[in-house]
Each structure stands twice: as structure tokens, then as C-alpha cells.
């Protein structure tokens, strides 16, 4: 075959193996994991989070409609680890530490007017070390050949813990 088909997504995840007519329409949802919040109030009324800093982890939900080629999900059993660089950028103020490692060459810093500089907003695509936390699901329609699927994963461990 001499003709190559374009890859429709910028998402980098070797485990998912995104490619032609797969992951065409991915929606990525981020949220802190539920355990990151365990709020109580002191006798002064001050809110205190009882959770240790190691629980400051992200939950990532990948969902997709209208894929024509099924994604490579079959081996992603709950508990399996995989690495993901999402297609879209994250954004943080440069006054705060960078939360996750950036994928090589993706960091750029812009000010409020979106002019490149040294301070303002840090935009980058993070490298996330994920573990499948919920059983994924894929549904496919035989007539339209449309696949819709969802994969829920959480970060494996806090980067401060190393490996």
C-alpha cells in the first residue's frame, strides 16, 4: 500500500494506538480524583483538607463517538498502566509550580494577550502515567459502523513518589 492515511488526532498514547479513523472525535475530561478531597472544618470554621498531598492526582476520562475503526482497548484491563499525552494543552499560571512533566517541545508561555513571553500562563501538554480504574466500554452499530467508547483512568501515583 503506497497511500498513507492521516492520523486524525494529536493524542499520543501507544497503548491506544490512535490512527486513521480511530480516536477521530475524542473528548478528554480531567478532574482531581475523589480522594483528593476530604474536607473538614476546624472549630474556627476553617476548612482543612485531611488528604495527604500524595492524593493530588488526576482522573482522565476519554470518550469518543463516531469512530469508524475500533480503538485498541481490548488489552486495557482495569489496573493496566499506560502513558497518555492528551491532544489539548493544559494551562497554569507561571507563578505556580508546574504540576506535571510536559511532553517534549510542547511548553510555551504567553501573557494575557497571548503574546509569547517569560511569565503569564504556561501552556503545555502533560505526560500522564495512568492506570485504568473502571471497566471501559465500546458500543458499535453494525449498519453505520459507528463506534462509541469510553475509558476512565486515574494517575498511577504522585510524581513525588518517583517510579
Amino acid at each position, binding site marked *: 500500500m503506497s497511500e498513507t492515511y492521516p492520523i486524525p488526532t494529536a493524542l499520543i498514547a501507544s497503548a491506544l494506538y490512535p490512527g486513521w479513523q480511530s480516536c477521530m472525535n475524542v473528548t478528554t475530561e480531567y478532574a482531581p480524583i475523589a480522594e483528593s478531597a476530604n474536607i473538614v472544618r476546624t*472549630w474556627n470554621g476553617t476548612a482543612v483538607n485531611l488528604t495527604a498531598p500524595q492524593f493530588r492526582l488526576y482522573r482522565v476520562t476519554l470518550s469518543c463517538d463516531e469512530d469508524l475503526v475500533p480503538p485498541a482497548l481490548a488489552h486495557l484491563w482495569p489496573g493496566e498502566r499506560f502513558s497518555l499525552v492528551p491532544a489539548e494543552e493544559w494551562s497554569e499560571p507561571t507563578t505556580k509550580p508546574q504540576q506535571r512533566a510536559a511532553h517534549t517541545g510542547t511548553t510555551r508561555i504567553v501573557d494575557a494577550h497571548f503574546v509569547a513571553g517569560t511569565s503569564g500562563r504556561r501552556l503545555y501538554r502533560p505526560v500522564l502515567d495512568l492506570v485504568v480504574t473502571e471497566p471501559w466500554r465500546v458500543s458499535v452499530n453494525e449498519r453505520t459502523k459507528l463506534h462509541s467508547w469510553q475509558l476512565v483512568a486515574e494517575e498511577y501515583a504522585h510524581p513525588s513518589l518517583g517510579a
Partner: protein
Amino acid sequence: MLKLVWTNSRAIPEAGSGNGIACFSGFLDETVQGDVVVPFFRVVIPNPGIGGFFNSAGIGKTAEFYDGTILLAKGRLSSMPVDLGGDTIELEFTCVPADEDEVLKEAADALRIGELEPEDPYDPESPVAGSEEYDPLFYSRDASDDPTNVLAARCELWRWHRTTLNLERVHLSRKGYCSATSLSGTLSGGTHHEIGLEGFEGALRVASLEPPRALTKLRVVAAFTQEARGTSTFPCIDPTEPIKTYSFDDLVAAWPAEGTPVGQNTGWTVAESRIESVSRDLLPDVFDVGRSLVNDDPSVVTAQLMLSAGSVAGLVRLGYDYTQQREEYLDVEMPAHAQRMMGDDRKELVDVIQLAPLNIDHVTPHWVAEDPETLDPVSYNVGDVVQANGRRWECVAEPDETERFRVGKLDMTTMTYTRWWKRVPKRAARTDETAPTYFDTDRGTRSVRHALRRLKRIVLRRAHCIEVSFDCAWEDGIAMSTRDTCTVTHRLLRSEGNATGTATGKVVSVRLVADGSGRRASVTMHVPAGSDEEIETEGGTTIDGDVSYKLKAPTARQPVNAAALPAQLATVTVVNGYAAQKSAALFEEDPVAKIQQMPTRVQIDVIPIQEEDMITRRLQVTVDPLPVPVGIQL
């Protein structure tokens, strides 16, 4: 991240390293239980399978419990997990060393100050460190079986340190600790934690424990036998004053024998008796007698009889034997300087303590052939002191006889005698057995002050009568232990008319709870309800920094002055002495018969020693109100 590291496969865990077993949940508890703090922790770890479990773990194996790189506790696996079949197993560890019983017993025994050496006795002015905190009379002979009883007169608790597993002592009320064997109990270290308003809402619990009554009373009973045995200093019949009599042979025969009692139940006996000499007068006395003595012989006109007297020089010394049962009641009453919580003014009797016999050495162990627990033969070393055959012995050479107690042994081949044991003076509380009193002697003062210190512990502990529990941050809990004190502020701890109030107390329990992502510490403290009003003091002797007392002791009733018995004189009457015999026999038809009717005797009269059934003496100790810290305003 909570981690468990088995010590036998240990590698020091580093942050983020793979060392150690990750724990799903952990629970650490350091709570005062009775008089000992034995921390423990429980962790839930992935089940390594039964083989993996028994390879790395097993009863008695030790492990360390980390939060990241912070060592939270160390301990020994104290029981098998209930279930080894689940995905996870729960393990419980106790934070004590393997030889915990021996360590505790040894430390407790170091605080047991027995009877002091007779040449260096207890001095109330400058008592030996630890001698008031322990008085062997308050304990039974088997006291060392229970290591906690040694703290009965110290305001302290035993504590196992949860990360070093060392034994130490912590104070009931103040922050700080001292080494387990410190006699002075000087505190160092410890932290005061200011939690302020940082406790977690919804977890405050305040309870009232049993506050002390207006007066707390302790009675100590000392029963003893006043004894005086001995012989008179002066003989009652002196050989330098011989007794002259015609019937000297008879007097010698009837001379008071050793051991015979004088009178009836007088308490006196003849202790020493002997005849030194019997001498006859050179010049006989002449008696005119009738002729009947010569069978009325008509050839006899008058008859005379010559009788020669003799002098008996002998010695009699009396002995006395006085025993008097005595009993002394010491009532110690201590008020607590605490805020009034109970409406009544009642007195509470907390204990009646019967002292051990005062004249028996019950500190020195008895010689035994075999250890009662292990049934192994006991070997003694040079310097060991034992009691055997009612006496006290010190080992001077290692005995090679273990079957029975022997002082030494004669080697029949070399004919040399080896001495194993040397007799040393017995150690008893009462060294002067003739003394009629106990509690107001120097040794008795030690008992009085020991009783005061016991009472102080009871009152001080009871005065910490508000229990405040709260939850706070995990980090605060890691820093906290039963060495510490703590202050919290809360609107419900307010006194009347205030918006908020504080409670300051001694930490009696710290629990660290980590379950999933939720981590918190639960702390319980006992808050003293002392009063800040000025203490009305009556003065007196002050001991232990804050106990001022006065002893009211009535004079002891002494029907017999035991100390004066050796000098007490007996009256000796010579009945039918030489003069009486002679005057009676003169002009008698038969002087010999007359003299025979009047044998010479010595009659000893003594003042009888009165023994009464039991003489009771009541002593009273009044104490100034015991200062209690003001931990809370009620």
C-alpha cells in the same frame, strides 16, 4: 505514603523508593492503660499469600511503620491475623522489645529502695533519693512480681517509646519524661502543643470523670510488738554482802535456781545465780539448853550447845521479759485545691494499708534451692545477700552446694574449711525493739512521707477530672505523645459569661488514623480542674515540692518504761536470818529444832511488768490543700 518494613529484611526506606510494603490503612494508638503506656499499631497490607506471610512475618517478627520517611512506630507482631484468606491482611504490632517483661521488672526493681544500711539510715532532713517514693513496709515480700506497684507513690506512669522501644517514665500531670531507672524522677523534654482552634468540628467530646472529694483520706496501720528482754545491770543479791545464817546448808540448797520465775506473772525470772563461797564463823555461839537434850541425865546440871553460823556469799541477777502489743493508726487527710464540682463536702477513705511486720526483714530474699518458675537450681554469686535459718547472710565465695543452705564446707582431704556465707546484720524497719512508737521515729517518718506521696498521686490523678477528646491534623498527632501536654480552644469550653474557653491538660491518648486518603489524629487529654485562689497554708514540713504537712502525735502510753527495766531494782528480804534465828533459839529448850523450824530464805520482790492486751495510738497528719494546675475555668 504509609509503609511497613520488616526489620529482618530491612533496607532504610527512602522517599518514593520501592522499599517497604505499601499500607492501605494504618492505625496507631498510644493510650494510658492503667499505669503503663503500651503503644500499638495496626496496618492493612496486600496479602502476600500464606507462604509469603510466614517467610517474612510470623509472631514476634519486628517491623517499622513509616509515613514517607517519618518513622511512626516500631513493634513486634503481637498476634496472628484473623484471616489470611482475603486480598488484604490486617497485622497488629505492639511497640515493646522482645524482653519487655524483664526490662520492666528490672527498671521497677531499681526503684525499690529497701531498708537502708544501719550505718547510713534514713534522715528526714536529707533523705536518700527515692527512699520516700518506696517503702518496703507498704509492699508484700513478692512485690517485685508486679512492676506497676512501684509507682504507687510517684506521680508517674511507665511508657514504652513507640519508635525507640525504650522504657521511660512520664508524669501524670506535667510534660516531660525521665529515664526508667531515675530515682529522682527529674523530668526533661516533652512538648506543650497549642492546638488552639485547629481541632476538627464535630469531634469534640467532654466528659467529667470522678473528681476528688473535699477530703481524701488514707489510713496506715502499723502493728508491732514492743519487746524488752535482758538482765538487770545490778545483781539483786551481791556476793560482797554475804547472808549469815545457821542453816547455811539449807540456804544453799534452796538458793534461787536459774530460770525460776520471780513471783507470779511478774515478767521477771532469775537469770543468773551462783554460790560463790560458804564460810563458817570461827567463834560459835553458846546456847543454854534444858536437860531434855541429854535425855534428862540426872548427872547433868546444866547443858550448853555451841552452834556455829555460816555466811553464804552468792549472786542472783534477775532477767526481764517484756512484750507489749502495740498498734498505731496514721490517718492522712489531704484536700485538693480544686474547683468545686461536687456539691458535697464528703470525705473519702481511699485505702487502709496494713504495714508489713516491722521487725522482719522482708526485703532480703530467702535462700532457695531452685527457681520456683523454671525449677532450675539457683547458683549464688559473691555479694548476693539471702536470708536463711532466720538470719541474713552475704555470699563471700561461690557455694558448690545447692541442695541445702550451708555456711561452708570442710574438705576432708586437705582439711581446709571454705566459708561461703558471712553473717550480716538483719535489716528490719524497727531496729530499736524497746521503742514504744513508730511513726514519729526517723524510720517512721519515711513511712509517713511515703503515705503522703501515695495520697498525692491519688488526689492529683483524680483532680484531672475533665476528659477532653478531639480530632486534629495527622501531623499534629505524629508530634504528640503521652509525654506531652496540650491546649485547645473551643466555644463550648467557655466559662460562664465568656465567648470561648481553653482547656489545658495532659495527653493520655493519641490515635493516628489513616484510612485511604483521610488522615486524622484523635487526642484525649485529662484536664486538671485546679483552683487559682490562693492556698491557705498552715505551714509545716514540705516534701516533694508541694505537700506541706503536720504530724500530730500524742505521747505514747507506757505502763512500763521498757528502757528503764535494766536499772530497775528488786527488793531482797532475808527471812529468818541469823539474828532472827538466834533470838528465837535463845532460851529455847531445843534451839536446833527451833532453828530448823525457821529456815533462812531470801525473798525477792519486784515491781511486776504489766502487759496490756493492745495499746492503740492514733496519729493524725493534716496536709495543706494540694496545688492542682488550673487547666480549665468552670
